[in-house]
């Protein structure tokens, strides 16, 4: 069809007496028959005064680069530079994403570290340098899309793209003279020398074809069809038979009975007498306080243990007991407020008793055995002792801190912690 169109154009041009070519010479071209001839010719031209010339062959001819005395291409520098940019941007990207913006712990590894970044760095390096290499080669070095290259639609181009080898000497060369160039190519042994003229600029429609109404509307139509197609596929088609096979799976979904087990439950009850791995039974479960009077706290009182106790206390205990154990619930009366832990009674309890209450529950307070681990419960007991001591500090205690009584609550707490005598054992 394009061929037909082209013929129509040429016919129209001829009928209207328009020659698409101007009188301005673009180049003088000579054809040769064999690869050997073209290598000899290229060698001679490149050694002559002509600097602005080119060679065309139907297939790559080895040794032609040397004969033309071409310098090694600069393409490699682009590949290297953009490869480097790819490397750096990948590292910066991952560093920012996983190290700064969205830190999440994966397998206990540091947020940003080199090994997992290497594959992505590698990919981005290859991607950047690959795309830029192709792009620079096509658009910068080969000047595509060059739609009015004067060599197009010439007999010369037809021949060198099928069975002949050709040299052109361009008119832009400083030493160019039409007659001399023709004679020179003939002296090299070319049997077919032709002169190629530049194209005439067509008058009238000078708008770049990319802004034609037709092209723009075609582009818009394509975009709309693609968007609609994507939308329909993802939001409707994939939920229809038979594409919904990934949606309909043989599994139990929430609020649905299991069809696999006859009782309709998906979770199996472990056989009677099953003990969870690492489970150590609490022997005093359900027993009165008086039975645990002799239990002590095996955890040492260290800064780490107390810090842990504080975080666990703040998480699990403070909603009802308050941050400082005053029983000032933050739940605003949704549950009955617990009594303060600074009462004479609780202060005189042994550690085992507090532990027992956390593990076993008391009155309204349920058992926290399933939420808080044994270690953490013991750390909480230590922390409660810290709160009690801080709340009921004597003048002597303040003397230990070396600060006057206007010291902040936090300061008092911390120093008390460190200097607390081992009353808990």
């Amino acid at each position: 069809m394009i061929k037909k169109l082209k013929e129509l154009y040429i016919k129209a041009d001829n009928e209207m007496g328009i020659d698409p070519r101007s009188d301005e010479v673009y180049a003088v071209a000579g054809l040769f028959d064999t690869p050997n001839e073209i290598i000899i010719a290229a060698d001679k031209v490149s050694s002559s005064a002509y600097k602005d010339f080119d060679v065309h062959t139907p297939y790559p001819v080895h040794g032609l680069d040397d004969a033309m005395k071409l310098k090694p291409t600069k393409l490699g520098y682009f590949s290297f530079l953009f490869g480097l940019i790819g490397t750096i941007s990948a590292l910066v990207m991952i560093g920012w994403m996983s190290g700064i913006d969205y830190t999440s712990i994966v397998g206990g590894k540091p947020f940003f570290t080199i090994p997992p970044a290497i594959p992505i760095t590698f990919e981005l390096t290859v991607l950047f340098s690959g795309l830029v290499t192709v792009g620079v080669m096509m658009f910068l070095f080969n000047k595509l899309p060059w739609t009015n290259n004067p060599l197009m639609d010439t007999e010369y181009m037809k021949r060198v793209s099928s069975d002949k080898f050709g040299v052109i000497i361009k008119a832009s060369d400083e030493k160019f003279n039409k007659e001399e160039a023709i004679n020179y190519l003939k002296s090299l042994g070319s049997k077919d020398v032709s002169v190629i003229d530049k194209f005439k600029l067509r008058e009238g429609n000078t708008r770049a074809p990319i802004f034609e109404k037709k092209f723009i509307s075609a582009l818009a139509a394509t975009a709309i069809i693609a968007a609609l197609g994507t939308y329909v596929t993802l939001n409707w088609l994939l939920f229809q038979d038979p594409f919904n096979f990934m949606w309909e799976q043989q599994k139990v979904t929430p609020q649905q009975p299991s069809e696999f087990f006859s009782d309709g439950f998906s979770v199996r009850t472990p056989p009677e007498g099953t003990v969870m791995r690492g489970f150590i039974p609490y022997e005093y479960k359900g027993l009165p306080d008086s039975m645990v009077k002799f239990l002590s706290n095996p955890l040492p009182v260290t800064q780490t243990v107390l810090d842990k106790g504080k975080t666990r206390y703040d998480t699990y205990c403070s909603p009802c007991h308050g941050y400082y154990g005053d029983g000032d619930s933050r739940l605003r009366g949704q549950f009955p407020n617990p009594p303060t832990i600074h009462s004479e009674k609780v202060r005189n309890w042994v550690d085992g008793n507090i532990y027992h209450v956390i593990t076993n529950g008391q009155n309204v307070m349920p058992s926290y055995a399933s939420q808080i681990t044994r270690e953490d419960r013991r750390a909480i007991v230590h922390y409660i002792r810290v709160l009690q001591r801080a709340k009921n500090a004597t003048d002597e205690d303040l003397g230990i801190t070396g600060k006057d009584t206007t010291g902040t609550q936090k300061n008092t707490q911390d120093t008390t912690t460190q200097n607390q005598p081992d009353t808990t054992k």
Partner: protein
Amino acid sequence: MIDYQHKPLPSKVSKLGLIMLVVGALGIGLSFVVDSHRAMFNYLIMYMFVLSIGLGSLGLVALEYLAGASWSTPFRRVSEFLASVLPLLIILVIPLLFGIHDLFHWSHPEAVEHDAILQSKEPYLNVPFFLIRVGVTYVLWLGFYYIFIRNSRKQDTTKDPKLTRTSGKFAALFAPIFMITITIAAIDFIMSLEPHWFSTMFGVYYFAGTVLAAFASLTFISVLLKQNGYLSSRISNSHFYSMGVLMFAFNVFWAYIGFSQFMLIWYADIPEETFWFIQRAEGSWLYFSYGLVLLHFIIPFLVLIPRSVKTNLQRLKIMAVWLLAAHYYDLYWMIMPVYSKEGVLFGWIEIMYPIAAVGLIRTMFTMQANKHNLMPIGDPKLESGLNFHLN
């Protein structure tokens, strides 16, 4: 026409090789007297290094037949001569077999007795089967070595193109055997030093280093021969550029495999795998490991990128030697931490072994080069190989 004339290498080449061999051998002997355990590990490193070059070169010879490559035909003899260390390895392996109890923890029955892991690995890791594997792999390597060499030498006089086809068929057979046997060698001699440890990529890791060492030694010797006029004058920069590219490629391949092995183990973080790397990250071994990344990958990678290095024979020669040294470094990194857990060991003992290895390869090469043509003048692909041009 092929403007090649056989002339023997200058006598100083073989003399120097012989001196290095004798000095190295004396050093090795002395080291066994001084500290036989340490000497045994060094000996294993040297052995694996010589094996790399010999077996890797045999692999390159087979690869050329298999791929029908012609550009490398002018240099095939170099690889063939390098592979001539393979028959010698039968003798070189004997000290290792005597030192099997020094090297391999699994070879002690009393250790296996109390070790469930070693017990379940016992069907593979036991002394008789180990000896059988060593024997079978040697029979295979030597068999193919003699087939390729005999065909190649016969062709010098008969100029029979059919021999190339025959070798091509054997090369197709050798390709899988090469991969399997080199994996077995890597697992038996290096990986089983830590019998609890395993990595499914280990064979490929050693293979990558092996091919790199084979290319590096091929490049080094070819450049030397070309510079001194022992090869055809028609060998051009395109040939050496291709060698440089292949060295570069296999260096990257080595890094790729090495990193993949590391990253999978690092990510999974399973103690039964990580301890191998932890060993190499403790004390001075940490800096040694960083050195491996720097010397074996980063520096050669950056240096070999520009075209000017790959077409400049002098620089190419330096990089070939560099990569060979890096391969020795790599083997040291794989093997030595098993013996010296405290830190990097370096003394006169460690210097003697590379000297002996280089002396050995040099001596074998010059012996072969003086007896046979340095170019396969009867090969039908030689002409097109010499015409090879990249542009």
